[in-house]
Structures are given as structure tokens and as C-alpha cells.
């Protein structure tokens, strides 16, 4: 992304001390994120990282880069506004399963529909972490947690399957226990032009006693391992994404390169080379 830039892993270093639980999936996610940014030669001052409110958001000051830590459930529209103002800068947004699928699910649906060229990374740990262990739409039915002591009576949302039904531009699933896969998926997602959705099945050692690191690890496989998997085939993607119980498909599940991103579709921006940030005084 940056011609001639020398980017080191340590460029993303922060002096602040992490406040996550021991064995939290977020550590590995940060590591994979930094590795992918270094691989893409993106220096910290040429990326905007936007965080939702939740445990993952508490890492906002533990990594380098231009960063915004906003409101619960609202990270997507903020990131989209930032992206449209400077479509030349990569914008990566992060949200938890609570903030994204409860409070802000409308934003997710519309971002897929509008196909804004940003990357969105969902930290799916199957519960509210920061507010100390309540259920979310991705918690399994029957799960007893703080707000549901008698067990969750509602059905679970399979996020990837749900989004694939919207004919998205890029959908991937990965696992916080696999740094290499996360790094590779992040690189693909950031490089993809359009709305790139990445779900991370994330271990929450403190509150998620059901889908533990070990349990997720025993179920996941990479679609690359399948002989005849075509990530450009939507029905195949829908099929493999459905199973969350026995064998969980991960990797880049689906992408569509023919879909134009929102900015490129804007008739008023055709033949205009500048970004909006360079036009305020020169309009």
C-alpha cells in the first residue's frame, strides 16, 4: 500500500499495558492484525483503526496507528464516514458480537448492501465481555449467563450464513487460535475492494465456558483444505458456512470481485481524483 515504506512490527508497538484476561483471544488478534499491516507495508500513520465499545475496544490504546474508539454498536457508520472522506486510506473497523449484532445490526446490513470499501472485523466471543458475561445473538440456545440464569430461550444467529444471504462482497471466518490464518485472512480482507467482513471465533476464557479455545480448535477446518472449494461460488459458501456445531468452516468463504464498491459507484465522484479531505478549501 505504501511504495517504498519500510514498516516494522514494532512500529505498531504501544507503551500502554494490556488489560485483557489471561488467554483472551484478543492478544492473538492484535498480533495477527499487526503482522498483516506489516505484510501490506502499511505504516501506522496511513491506516485508520476504528473500535467499538467492548473488550476488544479496550485495546484501542495498546496498538499504533490513527485510531478512533467510539460508541457501542456505532463503529461501522463512523468508519464509513471516515472512509468516504478519504477513500485512499485503508479503514479497518472492529466490533464485538454484542455491539454489532444487537445494538448496531442495521449498520452491518446496510454496509454490506452499500458495499463501502472498508474492512470489518467481528470479535465473536459469544457473549458480552466487558459488561461481565451476558448473552448475545451468537450465544448458543440454552446457555445460562448473567442475564439469562435459566438458559437462553432464543435462537442463535449464524453471522456468516446471514450475511451470505445478502449477496455480500467478501465474507471470511477465522479463529483467534490461529494467528497465521487470521493474518492471511486480514491481508485478503484489507486488499479486497468492497465491504470485507471477517468473523473471528474468539475464545473468552472468563465468560464463555461452552465454546472454549479447545472446543473451537477441535471443530474448525480451513476451506482451502477442501478439494473443490470455490470461494466465488455463493451457494457453496452458504452450504459450508451453515454448520456451527460439528465442523466449522473457516478461511475466505466467499468473495465477489465484480461488485463495485460504493465510492466507485458515485456518479459525482467519477473523474475526480482528490479525496474529500483535500477539497474543503479548494472547492
Amino acid at each position: 500500500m505504501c511504495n517504498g515504506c519500510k514498516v516494522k512490527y514494532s512500529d505498531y508497538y504501544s507503551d500502554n499495558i494490556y488489560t485483557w484476561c489471561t488467554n483472551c483471544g484478543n492478544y492473538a488478534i492484535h498480533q495477527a492484525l499487526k503482522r498483516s499491516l506489516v505484510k501490506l507495508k502499511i505504516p501506522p500513520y496511513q491506516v485508520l483503526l476504528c473500535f467499538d465499545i467492548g473488550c476488544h475496544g479496550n485495546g484501542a490504546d495498546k496498538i499504533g496507528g490513527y485510531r478512533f474508539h467510539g460508541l457501542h454498536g456505532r463503529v461501522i457508520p463512523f468508519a464509513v464516514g471516515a472512509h468516504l472522506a478519504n477513500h485512499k486510506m485503508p479503514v479497518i473497523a472492529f466490533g464485538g458480537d454484542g455491539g454489532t449484532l444487537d445494538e448496531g445490526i442495521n449498520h452491518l446490513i446496510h454496509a454490506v448492501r452499500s458495499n463501502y470499501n472498508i474492512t470489518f472485523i467481528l470479535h465473536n466471543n459469544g457473549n458480552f465481555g466487558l459488561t461481565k458475561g451476558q448473552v448475545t445473538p451468537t450465544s448458543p440456545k440454552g446457555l445460562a449467563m448473567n442475564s439469562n440464569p435459566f438458559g437462553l430461550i432464543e435462537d442463535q444467529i449464524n453471522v456468516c450464513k446471514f450475511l451470505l444471504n445478502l449477496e455480500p462482497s467478501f465474507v471470511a471466518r477465522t479463529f483467534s487460535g490461529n494467528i497465521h490464518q487470521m493474518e492471511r485472512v486480514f491481508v485478503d480482507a484489507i486488499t479486497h475492494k468492497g465491504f470485507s467482513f471477517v468473523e473471528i471465533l474468539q475464545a473468552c476464557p472468563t465468560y464463555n465456558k461452552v465454546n472454549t479455545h479447545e472446543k473451537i480448535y477441535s471443530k474448525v477446518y480451513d476451506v482451502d483444505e477442501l478439494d473443490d472449494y470455490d470461494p466465488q461460488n455463493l451457494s457453496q459458501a452458504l452450504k459450508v458456512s451453515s454448520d456451527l456445531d460439528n465442523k466449522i468452516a473457516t478461511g475466505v468463504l466467499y468473495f465477489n470481485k465484480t461488485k463495485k464498491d460504493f465510492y466507485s459507484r458515485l456518479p459525482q465522484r467519477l473523474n475526480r481524483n482528490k479525496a474529500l479531505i483535500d477539497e474543503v478549501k479548494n472547492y
Partner: protein
Amino acid sequence: MKNRFSVKIVGESGQGINLMGEVLSKAFLELGYYVFGYREYPSLIKGGSASYQLDISAQNINSSFKSSNVIIGLSRIALSQYLSDISDGGLIVHNVVKFQKSEAENHILKSKNASEEFIDTNSLLDKLNLNYRYANTFLVSLIWARLGFDVEILQEIFKEYFKERDDILENNLTCINLGFEEGSNQSLVEHGLDKPEKKANLEIMTGNEAIARSAIACGVRAFYAYPMTPASSILEYLANNAINTGMIVKQAEDEITAAQMTLGSMFMGTRAMTATSGGGFDLMTETISLAGMTETPFVCVLAQRPGPATGLPTWTQAGDLNLAIFAGHGEFPRCVLACSDLESCHRLTQQAFNIAEYFQIPVIVLTEKHIAESYFTKDTNFENLPIIRNLVEGKALEKLSPNDRYQFTDSGVSKRWVIGASKATFLANSDEHSEDGSVTEDASLAQQMYEKRMKKYTGLLKVIPEPTLFGKTSGEFLLIGWGSVKLSVLDAINFADKNVSYLHLEVLHPLDIAKLSNIMGRFKKYIAIEQNYLGQMSKILEMELKISFTDKWLKYDGRPFFVDEVIKYINKL
């Protein structure tokens, strides 16, 4: 009333009332008259009754009379609703077949010595084999003739309007000629207006168009909104002009999104705006709080209509002052400005951006349906304010450090730069933070950062527009108001016999207490005029200035203050 005349076209929504109002306005402008166009319409697409009133004068006017000298009626329901608005000696011309007046209606006409004339437009149009919807053009042309003006002016305006619709134009021209002929055979209507000087470049414009144009001129490059009356026409205007301006105009999925996108674009370093009405603003309040905390500039136009809930969607009020001042959790500095006319719509929009960027705070620009959708006459070009961004630029970018972003300063304002412009990266944090944005829960640091933000009020008070005093600088009565109240009060003062002054507030928050006390101290009695039930402005003044009002004239029926009722009120003082 000397030097003012008013014509009201009434009918059902969908009968072309607005088109006739606009056409007639342009015809008057062509002659050099000023017009003020006031529209009433229900919140539905077809049916119900609607009106377009034109007040006309040789001098600049910005208000409506409650009563009209001429009423052109196109439907029975509309006539019953508006018949009582006829002025003394006025004329009602209509095409309602078998118009049976009630006893009350007869009484009104009699007591006002008004005349009512039926024109059988149906038979006339049948003869021409034309659709009945052309009755509006016919009647407008008939009145134009009876006012003694030239038919060519009307013809030219229609030609301009329908230059791409030959068939419609032809039918309209036929109706104009016929209506004019008919009208010329009837008695003249005395309008009593002075002959205006012919002026070049008069145009009619709504308050919303003035805001939209001002935004374009001050470098707003993105506009995000969810449609809501009476803010929607800003979205419409900007969208219609997007190809020329290159502005990104996006109808968002809701107001939460619109506000967040606006904030995101501003954070990145461009200028972006959003506009909504009360209900949509409610959804934006968390974002306004976020703007306050992260010190990100934010500008929102809040176009008021009567509430609560859905309220009266297409009517006017100024009842969201408290909302604008107090919206959002926590305490943070903000600025609330209120428009009143075209000039202030233009100036305050640009000033809102300068203030928002300079102080890195949210700014709310209040307007009202009566300003947003009324048609004003524009006779001058408004000057654009210099664009003040307060961004670090050029070589200085290389010397920045992350701590500069929220550095403690005497003014509370720290350095801000376009994202990506410097190697000094930082975090903008909705959690309480230290100078580089890193989270903190340290008591003294938290208190210091809190105070840093609030300190901005000191500088803000030095740059906000001063309250304007109209009339004598001292005396018995001082009327005080904000928003559209100014329009009818200033027009009324010109006609009233009493010597009163009017103090107009453009900045509702923060208040410059010293300046206000200084001005108000020279008067004995204060009278608040407000378009809401609680007297929201006057309550704040009472609280901040420890004064009391002799009277508060509060109106909250969805209608603006009409100039005739203001004159009556002033004369009774």
C-alpha cells in the same frame, strides 16, 4: 395595511397550489416587488387543504398577514378552512360549483364587506377540451389582470417553467390568455402598492436552500441525512446539485448513521453536515456527546416542527431549544445558533463550521419549518465567511507528537490535524483519556481533561455573534425573541404606533451574560415572544440573568406569528 398586499391560493394538496404560488411570486419579482411566500399543507400526499400565501410589497418584507386581500379558491374544503382569512373589503374568487355558504360563512363575508365571485372554469375548460386541473392557471391569470399587470410577464414565466414540456406549456398559455381576457373585463382590484423600482437579480429562495448553498460555498464535501420534514429539502437540494459540486450526498439508513457518518468524515478532516428534525435529532444525541468527548467538530441542522413524537409534521414551531442545548449525556461545550432569515441561514451555517472546527465542538444550527420552507425574496449576494479550520498544516506537521492532540492548553483548544497528514498518530477516545488519547481513570488527570474541554467556553464567548437590538437603544418595552419571531416582529414594528425595541438572539448557547445585561438594563419591561409553550428562551434568560418578564407571548398551534397579530399585540402594550 399600507404598502402590503396579500394573495392566498387555497385548494387541495396536488392541485398545483405550490406551482401557482411560485409562478405568481416570480411575476411579482419581475416587476420589482418583494414577496414572502408562506405555505400551509397537511402531512399527506393528495387531498386535505393546502394554501400558498404571497405577501407583496415594494419594500423588503419577511412575514405573512393572517388575512389575505385576495383568496383564490380551488376546492370546497379549502374554502371553508380559509374563508375567514379574507381581509376587510377582500375578494374571494373560486371555481367551486354550487358553493353553498353556511350561515357563519355568510356572516363573515358580510361583516368583512368581502365579495365572493364564482368563475365557471369547468365549462370554460370543457369548451377548450382541457383538463380541469388547468383551472389554477386560469384563475391566477384572471387575478393578475384584475390587479392591472401585464400579461406578458406571466407568459414569460410559464415559458421558462415549462420550457421542456411543449404540450403543457401550450395549454397553460391558452389558459393564461383566456383568464387574462376574462379578468380584463372585470373591475380592477386596488392593491394600493407603491410602484417599486425595478431591481435586477431578485430571486425567491427558501431558508433551506440558503443553508444548502451556504454549505456548498464553505467547503462541505459530504452530507448524510435521513429524510424528515422540514429538513428534507436540504437533502434534496444538495442531491440535485451533487454532480456539479462533487459532494457525497447519502441518504443513510437512519439518523444515528447520518450523525456517525458526519462525525467520521469530520474526524478524517473534511467538512460534512447532517440535517434533521426533532425526532431524528433525538437519535443523534449520543453522537453529539461523542463529538464533545473526542473533540471532533460536528455540525447538525435541527429544523424544528411541533412535537412531541410525530407532532404536526408539516407545521412550524420552535420548541426544540431545550433539546438542542441539553441533548447528549455528560457535560461538554457546544454552541447552539438559530437562523431567522436567508442572510442568517447563510451566515450561521458557515459560522457553525468555523466554530465547530476552531473549537473542535458540536454546533447545532436551529431553524424552523417557517424559515426552512417559506419563500423569501433575495436581493443581494451574501458574502462567504473566510474558512477557519484551525488545522496544523505544512512543515509544522513534522514536529507534532501524539500528545499534541489533546494537550492541555490555556484555551482548552489543542492542535488538530488531518488523519494521515502527520506521522504523529493518536487515539480519539470516547473513554476519558490522557493527552494522546490513551484511556485513564486517574482522578486528577480525568478532572484536568474535563476542565480542558469546558474551558473552550471562554474563547467561544469571544467569537459568537452578538445579540442584535432593533429600534431604540433604551426605553419602556423590550421585546425579546429568537428564530422566525424576528421576521414578523420587525415587519410589525414598521407599522405599529408604539415605540418598541426588539432584541434578537442568534446564539442561544452559550449566552453572553454581560452583553445581554448591558443591553437589557436600558429597558424597563421585558416581553418574550416565542414559538413554544414553556417559553424556553425566556426561562433560560430568567435563570442566567436573574430577571423576570412582564409578559410572555407564546404560540404553539403550529402557525407562525402573523404580522397583523403582532401589530395588534404591540399596539396594546
